[in-house]
């Protein structure tokens, strides 16, 4: 060969830690970088937990979310204990509640009865259900040892329904609305964004102006108008579907902008030109060179737009324009906690609000972590 061998680097040992770094695939590098964001990592765990819980709602929820118990309205949460009043270990249990009435106001008062220990057991039989409407079962994650006793860990609502069960079932609706809605806007966004970024010129300008037009529409009045147009007698499932489509029709512009931006910046990269000059076809350039660089950004952008969807659903339902009972969603649950009397007497009914905050924050933290890890080659 030639007389040049100026780069005398030591031999390659694939087991070497450095060599592992040199051979690390983009995905590995991104994971290493993502791992450094503790908050994003925790958020990821929270979200996985939330989606698993909601996914197996029939199993994880101790009771039927629609079951009304007249004798147990507005019961406060029952905290879970391990030790009784004498500090003897009892395993997980809750104290029973004594129901009485205030003699003056005639309001129901619940008092904790420290003598009445209701033991709590995992994987017990409880009310029967059909998992995802298909698989019949009666096994629940936890419940009272005594099949006749009831445990309301988060209390009950004005109709005596178990709030925890409603929260879990409502989560299924709210959390999937986020994902399904983003899937819709992803489809529209990526199509419009790539057309805009790839072809440029007139088409790009037209799509840009369309996006600006959509973004300039005041959303709440638009939603109110459209939601009002939905017939009341429609199946709640239809309404659910339409709400998501509605939300994504506005939301796609954010994703389209991200996709367009990365198309534009990648089109100017030297390595894309280099590939073109070797004679690579347009489709090869897009598939091999541009898409891999874009996916990570798109994933981050998608993650960051899920909370928009969740908040949108909540806002609509809260205003009574979105989902309506009997469908349970976090927005619907909050709507039930709308009046002042309820908030004063049963503040635990605001707990779905806390759930929303946690989920939205988790998505935002996760999205931030992903966005930072998206380009592990940053200089």
């Amino acid at each position: 060969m030639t007389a040049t061998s100026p780069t005398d680097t030591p031999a390659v040992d694939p087991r070497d830690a450095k060599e592992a770094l040199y051979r690390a695939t983009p995905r590995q590098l991104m994971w290493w970088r993502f791992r450094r964001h503790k908050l994003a990592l925790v958020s990821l765990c929270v979200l996985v937990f939330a989606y698993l819980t909601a996914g197996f709602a029939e199993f994880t929820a101790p009771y039927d979310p629609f079951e009304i118990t007249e004798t147990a309205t507005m019961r406060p949460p029952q905290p879970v204990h391990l030790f009784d009043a004498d500090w003897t270990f009892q395993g997980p249990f809750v104290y029973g509640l004594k129901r009485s009435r205030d003699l003056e106001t005639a309001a129901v008062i619940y008092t904790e009865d420290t003598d009445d220990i209701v033991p709590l057991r995992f994987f017990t039989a409880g009310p029967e259900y059909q998992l995802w409407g298909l698989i019949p079962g009666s096994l629940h994650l936890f419940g009272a040892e005594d099949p006749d006793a009831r445990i309301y860990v988060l209390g009950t609502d004005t109709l005596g329904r178990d709030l925890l069960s409603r929260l879990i079932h409502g989560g299924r609706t709210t959390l999937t609305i986020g994902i399904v809605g983003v899937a819709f806007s992803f489809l529209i966004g990526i199509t419009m964004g790539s057309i805009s970024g790839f072809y440029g010129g007139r088409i790009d300008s037209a799509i840009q102006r369309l996006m600006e037009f959509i973004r300039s529409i005041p959303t709440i009045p638009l939603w109110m108008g459209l939601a009002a147009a939905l017939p009341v007698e429609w199946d709640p499932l239809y309404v659910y579907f339409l709400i998501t489509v509605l939300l994504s029709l506005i939301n796609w512009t954010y994703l389209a902008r991200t996709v367009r931006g990365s198309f534009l910046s990648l089109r100017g990269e030297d390595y894309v030109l280099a590939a073109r000059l070797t004679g690579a076809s347009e489709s090869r350039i897009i598939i091999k060179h541009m898409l891999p660089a874009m996916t990570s950004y798109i994933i981050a952008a998608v993650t960051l737009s899920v909370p928009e969807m969740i908040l949108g659903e909540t806002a609509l339902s809260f205003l009574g324009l979105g989902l309506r009972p009997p469908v349970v969603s976090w927005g619907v649950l909050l709507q039930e906690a709308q009046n002042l009397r309820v908030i004063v007497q049963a503040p635990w009914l605001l707990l779905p609000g806390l759930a929303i905050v946690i989920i939205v924050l988790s998505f935002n933290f996760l999205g931030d972590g992903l966005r930072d890890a998206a380009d592990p080659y940053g200089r």
Partner: protein
Amino acid sequence: MPVEPLAPETLFSVRGLSKHFGGTAAGWLQKAKPVVKAVNDVSFDIRKGETFGLVGESGSGKSTVARLMLRAYDVTSGSIRFRSDDGATVELAQATKQELTPLRKQMQMIFQDPYSSLNPRMTLLELVGEPLLVHGVASGSELEDRVAELLKLVGLRPEFRSRYPHAFSGGQRQRIGIARALALKPSFIAADEAVSALDVSVAAQNINLMQDLQDQFGLTYLFITHDLSMVQHISNRIGVMYVGRLMEVAATDSLFQEPLHPYTEALLSAVPQPDPKRNRSRKRVALRGEVPDASRPPTGCAFHPRCPYAADICKTLEPELKEAKPGRFARCHFAGEFQLTGAYA
């Protein structure tokens, strides 16, 4: 349309090449963009096996010329004739995509930025092997062998082929770029500021490598740079560009000894020398002002506002590139009439 055949020693012949960017009128949906005449009536030949240097300051259009020759851009006007491996002369300026694809094997490019010119998400095998794969030259284990060979050729270990570019320094990345350019055994390589981003000691290694490869494979180089010392070292002939125009073309020695264009003289005198005594004794041609914007070039000769020799004619009439002396071309009304100072003085 028949193409006039090139003389056997000529590889490239560029005539009246121009490239205008922008120039869209204001419409309903977009704002107007002014015309930027990045390259304006450029003509020169590149001979087989030589290194043709193209020098100029930023905005002179030297990179655009190279990209036009490789047809990374569409040509606004002019002709680019290229002598193909089979001896036929092809006209590249108006060639279609289908016509260009087989020709791309014969001409390649080395980029300035060793970071952005390699896809960070591909291993060396994929990067260097891509041209071979695209043209169906090799695949599978044969591809691996070819890539290993190419890496060895540029002084990198074949085992590096499973590594990603982030494992390498700027100079090594540049070598990977050279290996990729060599993959299809081209006859012509355009090196666009190929060593400008590197430290001096690394740049010297890569320049030597490029010269070795030229000797070994009989390559023809178009070497684009703003570094006059480097272009003098590597080139056989040199073109000097200014605001999209080719101001002077000559063999390296005669250009440095006795420039014919005042801009070349100014450029040569502006380079600070690693020799303090010479710097002190030498008289610098102090140029007024700065390089004009290519979207608003001066009237007449593009250099006249800064030219110490400018006369009235220079303000109104743009000179042509003419043969002032045998084999020496200059775009100046007074080419050959002044005694200009070279770099050897």
